[in-house]
């Protein structure tokens, strides 16, 4: 028997829990050379901005032990280019599309949400809160619960009610639960975590920072324990809120770890750079692991690591075979 892998982002059903991470799947076309985008739980776009952006200078990447530092700087076509050239292709291919948005002010996020509200084929909107707030001397929204909540509330208000709004959190905060709670109070239907913690690497030969931008976002297996901790804490505090977990997922085991911590879906980012087939592979491996452990449904494994020590995994609920 195959396990039931369906999952829900608020009321929206996804056929499986494996998504691409924002900024790691290109426009979708590049991955389509390797596997069908419509088989993903959902395709998450790079963070779309109002105007086209050229991004940061190169070098934009540096490899670190089991990690990758990047400073791409949200290079992209702007929302008009996205709606004209990128979204239609995803819709035509039948991909469930989560559109990530990034802005420098609450007004910009709101304007983006309004532009997207007129477009067909958007499964959910994800708010990348790890963008510098130009009205707060560049402090990123995700570091400040009230600024984050303000963005979430205005995007939620501008987005059609049937489209869930996901707030994407940064691990670079003193209290991630406080920011998560603020976002949910602001109207977020789901949460995604973690975005890249900020890191840095110095080339000891040139004796200069390895990235042109100086600092960059760290991703890959190096950050997985951080992701597991964040998902764990937020799920413990807000057990009813769907969480998309990410950070260093390269195998089904990694995905299961985040699910057990409380994620109902997982996103794969940096692993795609190494293995363009990573998403279908992670899904297959996750399904096998669930079956080996006797789960009929993914949902039964979500947050299971929170049960008291010594307690058995939850009994299976099999309503169809009930005699009642």
């Amino acid at each position, binding site marked *: 028997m195959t396990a039931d892998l369906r999952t829900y982002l608020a009321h929206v059903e996804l056929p499986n829990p494996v998504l691409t991470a924002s900024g790691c799947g*290109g426009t979708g076309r*590049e*991955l389509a*050379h390797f596997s069908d985008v419509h088989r993903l739980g959902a395709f998450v776009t790079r963070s779309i901005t109002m105007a086209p952006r050229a991004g940061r*200078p*190169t070098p934009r990447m540096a*490899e670190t032990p089991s990690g990758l530092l990047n400073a791409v700087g949200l290079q992209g076509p702007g929302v008009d280019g996205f709606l004209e050239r990128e979204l239609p292709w995803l819709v035509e291919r039948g991909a469930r599309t989560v559109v990530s948005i990034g802005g420098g002010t609450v007004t910009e996020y709101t304007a983006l949400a309004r532009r997207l509200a007129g477009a067909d084929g958007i499964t959910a909107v994800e708010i990348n809160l790890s963008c510098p707030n130009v009205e707060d001397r560049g402090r990123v929204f995700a570091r400040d619960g009230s600024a984050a909540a303000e963005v979430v509330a205005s995007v939620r208000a501008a987005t059609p009610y049937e489209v869930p709004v996901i707030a994407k959190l940064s691990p670079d905060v003193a209290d991630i639960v406080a920011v998560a709670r603020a976002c949910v109070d602001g109207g977020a239907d789901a949460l995604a975590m973690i975005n890249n913690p900020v890191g840095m690497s110095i080339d000891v030969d040139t004796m200069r920072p390895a990235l042109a931008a100086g600092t960059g976002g760290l991703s890959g297996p190096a950050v997985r324990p951080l992701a597991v901790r964040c998902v764990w804490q937020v799920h413990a505090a807000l057990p009813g809120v769907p969480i998309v977990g990410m950070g260093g997922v390269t195998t089904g085991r990694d995905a299961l770890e985040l699910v057990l911590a409380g994620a109902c879906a997982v996103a794969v980012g940096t692993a795609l750079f*190494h293995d*363009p087939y990573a998403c279908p592979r992670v899904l297959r491996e996750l399904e096998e692991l669930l079956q080996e452990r006797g789960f009929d449904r993914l949902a039964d494994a979500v947050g299971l690591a929170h049960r008291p020590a010594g307690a058995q995994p939850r009994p299976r609920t099999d309503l169809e075979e009930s005699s009642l």
Partner: protein
Amino acid sequence: MAGSPVQVTGTVLTTRRVDAYHALTVVAPGIADRFRPGHFVTVAVGGRDSSMLTRRAFAVHDVKPDYGGTVELVFGVRGAGTAWLADRKARDTLDLVGPLGRPFPLPRDPCTCVLVGDEHGSASLFALGDALQQRGCRVDFVLGAPSADRVFGALRARRMGETTTLTTEDGSLGMRGTVTDVLPGVIADARADAVYACGPMATLRGVTAVAAQFGIPVQVAVEESMACGIGVCMTCVVPVIGDDGVTRMVRACTEGPVFRGERVRFDDVGTIPFDALGAPGGRHA
């Protein structure tokens, strides 16, 4: 792109040393079939539980029909990834993705082409030379490096090329100097119609300037740090002027690595030119 790239777990057929370089021949049918000169492949390094997350990019030096199709890579040891690759033995397996990138465009009619290779950049010129000769083109080589042991492919160039000019910065082989120093003479003598070049950015900039003096087209294959090689990460961008005259930060792995030399803003590599599309405070349409 000539067909889609594929991922192949291939067996290493042979390994050899060529002066300062290592050459690996790998059985990779899906890649060899689709190969065109200028394509590159990416290789996973460090084994299954490697802490090296990014694949390493290498030009394809040669493809052969043996065993359903093989590809040969030529590389110098630079850091941990290439050091690991240099330790591979026959019958080991390697995980390759390819062919990647936009290959060299070929002239429609027979003409005279100068092929310029600096250090390991020479590796991708021989398949190109073959393809050009099959179209009836005359091919002249200019190969260079800092020292004799790092000039790759001199013998093969001498066999294939109408002329071959070698340069080393220390004078240990051929003329003392760089490929750009001798290029004007070679172009003039051969009455060349086009130039193809592979090598470090600074060399490509110099070669492009020379070709511009002669008013002949130049195709360059750039090398920019790549995290994915397949177009999804946006780390490999270079400022390139489009057909519409607008500069964009374009991906070397998918829109390149081959570009028309005069379209690449070499002086601005490593920056975001203020007039690039989407530059901070710059143009937005």
